[in-house]
């Protein structure tokens, strides 16, 4: 059976989105992205350094779909300008919308996020907002025209996994748009859990970039996302508070 994953009319063959920050080297980044099998990689938009020339991630990853983010923006206004700059720089109208309300937790500023989503949708963007694991907020974002919602597993870079699986499951059940669990993934099992809860995809960065062997972890994440998706589609058995023998009870030797 076909199990298509479509965002804004675009069919994606991988349910893993990979961030490109914090890898030990550009070579390791390139190899990790390749091994992960992902199609979509995130990039940020930053002022050019007036001293150094910087490295060219865009050139390195030119065969992938680049998803620019508005990371670090704290107001709808800054996020909107960053999205416009990203669209001009990369000729894509897809934007991972981040509007941060608190530098300690990097939690989104939900009112600015909603406002920026509405405005960017009006401006023709395909908006993928990073948001709280809040079913109401996710519904409002979808109503505002978000092409997908991206609730956090847990805090960005924390590696705490899916902190509130019940919420993620709720969001996945009711969302009219794809749900991409973004942030907090620490290792492969976290990605499996997110997918088993019904997420359409997982976006992660630090779990791969800061692992001891990013290329190996990228492979683990590829399989984790596939495995979690298959398990979700297959349907888990109910949890029971007692044992249930799996072997037949009839014909036991000596009975």
């Amino acid at each position, binding site marked *: 059976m076909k199990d298509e994953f479509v965002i804004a009319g675009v069919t994606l063959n991988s349910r893993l989105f990979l961030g490109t920050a914090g890898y030990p080297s550009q070579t390791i980044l390139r190899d990790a992205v390749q091994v992960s099998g992902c199609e979509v990689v995130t990039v940020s*938009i930053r002022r050019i350094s007036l001293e150094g020339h910087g490295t060219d991630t865009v050139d390195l990853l030119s065969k992938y779909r680049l998803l620019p983010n508005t990371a670090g923006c704290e107001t709808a206004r800054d996020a909107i300008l960053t999205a416009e700059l990203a669209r001009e720089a990369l000729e894509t109208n897809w934007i991972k919308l981040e509007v941060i309300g608190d530098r300690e937790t990097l939690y989104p500023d939900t009112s600015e996020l909603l406002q920026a989503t509405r405005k960017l949708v009006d401006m023709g963007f395909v908006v993928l907002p990073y948001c709280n694991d809040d079913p109401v907020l996710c519904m409002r974002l979808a109503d505002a025209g978000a092409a997908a919602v991206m609730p956090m597993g847990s805090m960005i870079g924390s590696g705490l996994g899916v902190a509130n699986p019940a919420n993620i499951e709720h969001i996945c059940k009711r969302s009219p748009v794809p749900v991409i669990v973004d942030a907090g993934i620490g290792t492969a099992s976290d990605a499996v859990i997110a997918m088993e809860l019904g997420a359409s995809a997982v976006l992660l960065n630090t779990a791969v970039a800061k692992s001891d062997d990013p290329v190996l972890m990228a492979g683990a994440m590829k399989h984790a996302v596939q495995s979690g998706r298959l398990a979700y589609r297959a349907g888990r058995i109910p949890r029971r508070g007692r044992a249930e023998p799996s072997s037949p009870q009839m014909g036991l030797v000596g009975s």
Partner: protein
Amino acid sequence: MRIYLNGRETEIDCLTIQDLWSWEQAERELESSRGFAIARNGALVPKREWSTTSINTNDKIEIVRAMSGG
């Protein structure tokens, strides 16, 4: 003329955004402007308008590029 380039007070000898970009492009040995974008006084300047957008004293110009990110 004095402008604020990426937040820093800078003396430049460019009349248009295109002039400024051409200087940066040569300095950085870039083949194209892919991955780059420019804002002037808080508003995007589309690439097609670079050559017709003049720079005035005290303008705040931001040159940005796409780079690694999560």
